[in-house]
């Protein structure tokens, strides 16, 4: 490909996949300059993407309460009294429809880890803590993304409380946990 064709190729791939042109040039300069023998494996960019409009179904109230009222709700089974958070519309043990109960937003860390490498969506946040938190008044564990400056402060047994973000979208990341006491 001549220089003009190469620039067009970079512009096209940049537009199609959102990959910055400098990254494309770094990866494909040799290939597009015709330096690679015809029989060598050929690599090109691609991306798989789908856009959704999805429903929380019978868990919808949980996310509305987060977004509108900064409140965390659990789901209580009227038969066995177990309280789920994350909530569910039915108790998996009794098959009864559950009832909403407000929670205080405090809890305790049951196990945790510190991530020093993560997915492309999170890698710029490392190191960060992921923990299983048992919220007070519940019987199960909630996966929690902690925001804490000193990751060494976190232990099994550390008491934590939920802190709501200023801007909330109606997702589980509308709040995070901080140690207290």
């Amino acid at each position: 490909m001549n220089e003009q064709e190469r620039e067009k190729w970079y512009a096209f791939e940049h537009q199609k996949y959102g990959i910055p042109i400098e990254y494309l040039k770094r990866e494909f300069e040799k290939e597009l300059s015709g330096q690679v023998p015809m029989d060598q494996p050929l690599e090109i960019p691609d991306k798989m993407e789908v856009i959704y409009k999805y429903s929380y179904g019978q868990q919808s109230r949980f996310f509305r309460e987060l977004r509108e009222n900064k409140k965390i709700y659990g789901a209580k089974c009227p038969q066995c009294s177990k309280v789920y958070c994350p909530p569910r519309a039915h108790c998996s043990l009794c098959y009864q429809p559950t009832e909403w109960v407000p929670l205080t937003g405090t809890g305790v860390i049951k196990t945790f880890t510190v991530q020093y490498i993560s997915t492309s969506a999170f890698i710029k946040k490392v190191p960060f803590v992921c923990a299983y938190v048992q919220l007070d008044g519940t019987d199960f564990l909630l996966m929690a993304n902690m925001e804490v400056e000193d990751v060494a402060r976190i232990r099994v047994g550390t008491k934590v409380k939920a802190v709501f973000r200023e801007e909330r979208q109606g997702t589980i990341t509308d709040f995070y946990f901080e140690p207290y006491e």
Partner: protein
Amino acid sequence: MRKVGIVGMGTTKFKARWVDKTYYELAFDAARMAMEDAGLSRLDIDCAVYGIYNDLFQRQYQPDAFVHDYLGLGLKPMVRVNSGGATGGAALRIGYAEVASGLYDICLVLGVEKCADCYNYEFQSATPEVLRAILYTADMTYDNPAGRTAASGFALAVIAHREKYGNPTDEQMAKVSVKNHFNATKNPIAQSPKVLTVEEVLNSKKIVEPFRFYDNCLYTEGSSAVILASEEVARKISPKPVWITGVGASTDYVIPGNRPNIHTFESSRLAAQKAYGMAGLTHPLEDLDLAELHDAFTGTEIMAYEDCFFCEEGQGGRLIDEGVVMAGGKLPVNLSGGLIGCGHAVGATGIMQTYEVALQLRGEAGERQVENARRGLVQSIGGTLCTWTVCLVLEREG
């Protein structure tokens, strides 16, 4: 139920990236080797089971259909199995059922995975994009947005285990890494043969508390295949079939927060129990000559010693300290190098480990051969904190 034997097997080399092969070309190589080993052609295969984990890795939904076509098995029945890291073992379980039930006589079970086509241009690395593709298997509403990875999921369990029992310690985990990397030096298909010291492992960079770089399994591309046959057919076509005498499987709560315990893998314990019961095996440490366990992380290999009843709960660390699980020990674990030394080509992994045990039982494992190996265990685990486990007991005759 009919008795089922492994009559042919093949595997490609396990590599970080097979840039010169597509996933179906890799599958072709393993299938051809297995058919040559069994002395069969594609015309003899009655049905196929494919273990392929992540559609995003393959950049293709329903990749099984494309493998099946490429192998020239069109017009024959097939099914795809996908159970996360346990995919290979789970595919073997379905293949076993196909033959044991009497529905088919000869079944090809093939696992294949390409992962490093996932690529992040910014970081010039496959890793963050591979992790992202894997994270779509975590619960999308509550767990995925927390930025967990497969490693941090298992780290949560290892830390809970350590909190309760005081092990696995960093040193014990490092010893597992040294063992598995060293075992890989004797395996020609292994991706990461290395002679490491405990200090080198302990000094490698932290990935996820408490795992360091060398505590983790590898992203691997590769394909492995075995051919299963009913007893009658197996005896006709194979001079030394390896029998599958025990099959156990279980599934734990996929939301780990709903489990009664997070310091142990209940699905692993149930799967091992079931496989041992079927094989009539009462003292695994005495009755098994080798085991291939799912060492996705060094800490979980130690937990697997307990889950497979090689020792009491909480005693796993002792087995690596005492050398029980080393090559030449009472019950060598992961002579192939396991996922840490040989590689983790997800859908192919459990089949590669079955290949290893079958090779040992046939006495064809070369430098890493266990003398007079008669019975071996394969364990495949997968999914969020070990949602699935499949255990297989393999035996040779005589």
